[in-house]
């Protein structure tokens, strides 16, 4: 029963948050400078009548409240607006890009999680040792390098100087590849952008796994296991790591949503045709409806990911239900 109430509370909280995001999203883009309809036309000769026609078509002739009601109604129907730049529904524009971003983010996060857990576990297992200090400071350094800066460095070294990897894009243009060849082509293009994301997140995962590991090391069952004379590697794998992994795995859940948002930098540097690069292009073209749509999707996915994590956590760790572990 308690679980149900907790879940309902969380879900209603998420709904309120999403509603607030929708309002904020609407307001932010009404204060933007420039006339959105004028921005649709670069051609200066558009007649006043044509502009008025477009205004009516997009409902911009209505009052602020009328526009908000329209916007909300459209959202309920899954309509995110109409892109100025591409002259088609925002949802179609985003839909074209979402798969590419998912491929990149999932690959990068899986690699980062695995690497981070391995290195973090080693580091935490022998906390205070030289290896630990090295891993720790390397991960702090990696965590300090902005993804776009790492991207530029990787691009300079492996793209321009060593000529190993392609300079951008998701596949060789108009190659006609299908199936396995195409997959290989895509993977080949993905190496640099994925690694510029991996190198950032791996720092975070190392730090987290390490601290979690250090905590676990003091627990009674490890001491007991040691006292039993089990091999160190067995204790590490079977006892310590397994328990230390819990917070890390949950983090990947939240991170996944945040990483989609953070992928903007890597996609921009490597012209990866995903949502991140789309955001950059939308900024460059000042395509406000598109930006608005992208932002809504980012924000809602973060809220939902958080909700999911809250719900999962509450099953794992009963203290959360009472709010004791909230802060």
């Amino acid at each position, binding site marked *: 029963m308690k679980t149900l109430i907790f879940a309902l509370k969380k879900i209603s909280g998420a709904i309120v*948050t999403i509603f607030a995001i929708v309002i904020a999203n609407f307001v932010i883009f009404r204060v933007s400078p420039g006339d959105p309809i004028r921005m649709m036309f670069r051609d200066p000769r558009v007649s006043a009548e044509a502009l008025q026609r477009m205004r009516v078509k997009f409902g911009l002739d209505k009052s602020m409240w009328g526009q908000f009601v329209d916007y909300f109604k459209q959202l309920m129907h899954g309509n995110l607006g109409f892109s100025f730049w591409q002259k088609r529904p925002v949802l179609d524009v985003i839909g074209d890009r979402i798969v590419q971003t998912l491929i990149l983010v999932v690959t990068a996060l899986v690699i980062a999680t695995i690497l981070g857990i391995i290195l973090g576990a080693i580091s935490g297992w022998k906390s205070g040792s030289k290896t630990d200090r090295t891993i720790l400071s390397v991960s702090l350094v990696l965590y300090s390098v*902005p993804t776009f*800066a790492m991207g*530029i460095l990787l*691009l300079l070294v492996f793209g321009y100087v060593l000529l190993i990897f392609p300079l951008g894009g998701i596949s060789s243009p108009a190659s006609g590849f299908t199936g396995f060849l195409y997959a290989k082509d895509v993977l080949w293009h993905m190496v640099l952008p994925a690694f510029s994301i991996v190198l950032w997140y791996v720092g975070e995962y190392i730090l987290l796994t390490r601290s979690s590991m250090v905590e676990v090391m003091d627990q009674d069952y490890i001491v007991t296991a040691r006292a039993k004379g089990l091999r160190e590697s067995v204790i590490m794998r079977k006892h310590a790591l397994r328990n230390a992994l819990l917070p890390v795995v949950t983090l990947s859940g939240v991170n996944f949503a945040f990483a989609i948002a953070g992928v903007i930098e890597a996609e921009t540097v490597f012209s990866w045709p995903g949502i991140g690069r789309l955001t950059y292009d939308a900024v460059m073209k000042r395509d406000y409806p598109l930006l608005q749509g992208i*932002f809504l999707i980012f924000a809602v996915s973060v809220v939902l990911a958080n909700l999911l994590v809250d719900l999962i956590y509450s099953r794992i760790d009963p203290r959360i239900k009472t709010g004791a572990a909230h*802060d």
Partner: protein
Amino acid sequence: MTNAEKTAEIVNRKKKREIRKQKTRDFLYLLMNHRMGKVGVVIIVLFLFIAFAAPLLRTVNPHQTGKVAHILIPPNGRFWFGTDDLGRDVWSQVIFGSRVSLLIGFISAFATVFTGALIGIFAGFYGGYIEELLMRIVDFFMMLPALPLMIVLAAVLGPSIWNIIFVVSLISWPTTARVVRSQVLSLKERPFVEASRCIGATNSFLMFREILPNVIPILFAEAVIMITEAIYAEAVLSFLGLGDPIRISWGSMLHFAFASGTMARAPWWVLPPILSIVILIIGFSFLGTAVSDILKPGYKETKGL
């Protein structure tokens, strides 16, 4: 108030000040004996020096365009870091760029911590509906994906460093507010607050004279993190072309280098700003790690204080 009471009050204050001074000294001692803290402090001091002494360290006016023969030339005796596509000196630009990064870092950290602390204290101290409402707002802001929101706001508000400061502060204050609130929740139950309340101290006295001094260490730790984030944010936004195109910053240097299509031929134009950003962020995150280590209960004792 009798004279004796007054004297006691003054002595009491002096004592408090002494204790605070001693605490600060201890803190600095611990910091300088912390491996990462030391490195962080050295880096930050170095960059602060560069920023303040920029007019002395620069070799030429960073805005001054050069002769045709000086366009995009590699580092040499005259242009230590080479020149950019208008023949401007990269060294002098990097030197002056430190000012923008540090300025944005410090001002946004101050704004963030100030707002966060205020709201955190109010929420924690008053509790009830005020707390509920403020914490809902905090939760809302924490839910928003930071970078996309910053990009959207910077695009809508237009390019200027004040907008960047505003955007960064707007997005970062909730973290501080949350941390401060949870501190205040435990502080307000402490005996010294209770004692003050009993002798009739006003709410504002309790909040700002009794509780605030005790959250300052936490605020300091928060401020260090916020500076890191603000520097990062400025770099990213400027790199994406949302910074002030007239003002020289590391991010905008990278933006122009990236947009000019000369990155591979002129690495001297790209590497100095990148390394500066990275080193400065490393400095602050080392300092941040050190500070949070030091603030951990029990750390002091391990160092024999």
